[in-house]
């Protein structure tokens, strides 16, 4: 495990690039979080909630038929089976507990496609918090079902009409709200990005993924995997997966969304297609133009469609501990179909990036190598995209006889 310095830096990355007005709240969060992490009572409460409500730990699953096709032994960490359908429940339940500890009664969140917004609204409903979710106006239209979900859960959804009207602008708007409401409001951020201590907080809350998987594979196979893979949007599921293995002799792979290709303009691969910059409170890799204006990202996967990446990932890339590669839309969709066909599992398009990347990386492994893939979420939310992408209009065979 790596931890940031006192000001929240991992090497050249991270930090706090936010208005002074927010620093007090960040420091409060840091204090409460650090205390909670060492408090057995918090840990017990978090574990109980995660298990009884979140359905954790998620199972580790040996994908026999996919393994056959890949020539390596593939194990899937089934985060798709968690309550609300992704690893995100870990983060929101943890932050909700921290919110309670800070005595706050309202949470705000940014959301792109709506997945984090739904998760945040879920946790807020569970804890009886007021909840406001900021979502680009463009996204509220494209993802109206998730808007409905959030409202059903009692959250207020605020369409954001500034900038490009997408996730990054929703995040700006959340930060703006927070400056004005910080007394009673916690900003329940959705990934390992943002100003210190958020990247560490979210990492610590999600690290159960890797901790569980490491113990599960040792228990089931008796040894550590040769390669561990996860997709990287902001990077919470990947950090949650990698953290347990950082000190092990295990290859770690993060797969970014390459859109049409990491070398094209339609990409969301901050590390592979972007450069060093500051966005949303942290120094990290950012998709930006020659002046440092943020560029719009593009990915078929709404959850990976974000122009930056958490600073700890930037650091793990810079140090070479983790290999970050881009996976294109087409590669991801093929992997999604392959997993469905071989295993009866329809995963999130985000997670399909991890599957695609792992299958590619596995080609360089010895046959029979152990590969662990974090399946970060289920694909229910993505079926509209899947239908548009694949041609499901082919006529079924005519069964009738006359």
């Amino acid at each position: 495990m790596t931890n940031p310095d006192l000001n929240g830096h991992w090497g050249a990355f991270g930090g706090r690039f936010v208005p002074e007005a927010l620093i007090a709240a960040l420091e409060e969060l840091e204090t409460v979080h650090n205390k909670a992490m060492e408090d057995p009572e918090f840990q017990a409460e978090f574990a109980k909630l995660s298990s009884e409500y979140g359905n954790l730990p998620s199972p580790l699953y040996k994908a026999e038929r996919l393994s056959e096709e890949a020539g390596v032994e593939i194990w899937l960490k089934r985060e798709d089976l968690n309550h609300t359908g992704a690893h995100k429940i870990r983060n929101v339940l943890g932050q909700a507990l921290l919110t309670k500890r800070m005595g706050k009664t309202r949470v705000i969140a940014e959301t792109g496609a709506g997945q984090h917004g739904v998760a945040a609204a879920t946790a807020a409903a569970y804890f009886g918090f007021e909840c406001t979710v900021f979502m680009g106006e463009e996204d509220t239209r494209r993802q109206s079902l998730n808007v409905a979900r959030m409202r059903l859960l009692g959250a207020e959804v605020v369409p954001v009409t500034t900038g490009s009207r997408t996730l990054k602008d929703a995040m700006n708007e959340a930060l703006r709200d927070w400056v004005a409401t910080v007394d009673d409001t916690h900003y329940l951020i959705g990934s390992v990005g943002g100003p210190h201590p958020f990247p560490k907080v979210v990492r610590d809350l999600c690290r159960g993924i890797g901790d569980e998987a490491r113990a599960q594979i040792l228990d089931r196979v008796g040894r550590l995997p040769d390669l561990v893979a996860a997709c990287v949007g902001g990077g919470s599921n990947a950090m949650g997966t990698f953290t347990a293995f950082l000190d092990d002799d295990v290859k770690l792979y993060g797969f970014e969304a390459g859109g049409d290709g990491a070398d094209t303009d339609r990409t969301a691969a901050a590390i592979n297609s972007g450069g060093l910059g500051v966005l949303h409170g942290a120094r990290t890799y950012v998709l930006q133009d020659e002046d440092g204006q943020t560029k719009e990202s593009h990915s078929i996967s709404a959850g990976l469609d974000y122009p930056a990446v958490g600073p700890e990932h930037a650091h793990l890339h810079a140090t070479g501990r983790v290999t970050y590669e881009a996976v294109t839309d087409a590669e991801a969709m093929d992997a999604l179909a392959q997993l469905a066909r071989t295993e009866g599992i329809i995963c999130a398009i985000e997670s399909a990036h991890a599957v695609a990347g792992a299958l590619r990386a596995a080609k360089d492994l010895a046959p029979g190598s152990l590969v662990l893939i974090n399946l970060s979420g289920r694909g229910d939310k993505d079926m509209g995209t899947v239908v548009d992408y694949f041609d499901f209009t082919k006529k079924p065979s005519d069964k009738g006889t006359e």
Partner: protein
Amino acid sequence: MKSADAFAKTKAEGRAALVGYLPAGFPTLADSIKAIDILIDHGADLIEVGMPYSDPVMDGPAIQRAADRALAAGFRTRQVFEVVEAVAGRVPILSMTYWNLVEHYGVDAFARDFAAAGGAGLITPDLIPEEAVDWIAASDAHDLDRVFLVAPSSTEERIAATVAACRGFVYAQSVMGVTGARAATSAAAPKLVERARAHTGLPIGVGLGVRDGDQAAEVAAYGDAVIVGSAIVNCYLETDDVPAGHRRLAELTTDLAEGVAR
């Protein structure tokens, strides 16, 4: 010309300074220069030239929209130097900029070119002194003012450390909230100014929310400078008729200047 020069003058006149904010490139590049001239002509003592940025987290809707328009029209970082060069000389010209633009240009290069254009220094809304090692070095090297922000939520220790890192003046964010003209000025502001004064002899500018001469006068009662942004931007946002905007700006500035001198 540095901020200190302007504050020496206003102090001598026994009044607060009026600081006017406008994004470079808004409503157009030429008109932003013209507008700044109007601000100065009608009594602004310092100018903040805003840097249009894609992700302005400290700004409310008015300044966001102004920045969006400048960016959509093709605003480039280097054009801020043109604007500064065009308006410098009469009053100190600072730039208020989100940090990534400076970092991306190169911190020292930006400081060098900004100073060369005749600029006085930078106000950095999303840069706290802990993250400012490079900027502190560059501003020292190029003799630029360095304005950090304090906020009602800042602890005593942070106020002390932040004002110690400032040069020229201190920016007191008077409300917990983003930029935007407000119906009432902040009750928290006088308290914040008082807390900041306990740690510094620098002038203290008070920003966020002032929209007319009456409010300016209120703020001038405890602040050393009254910073006005969204109200100025609004002169141009609500009309396509730029000359009409200029006339409105002249009136507004006159009103504000009268306010700070009351």
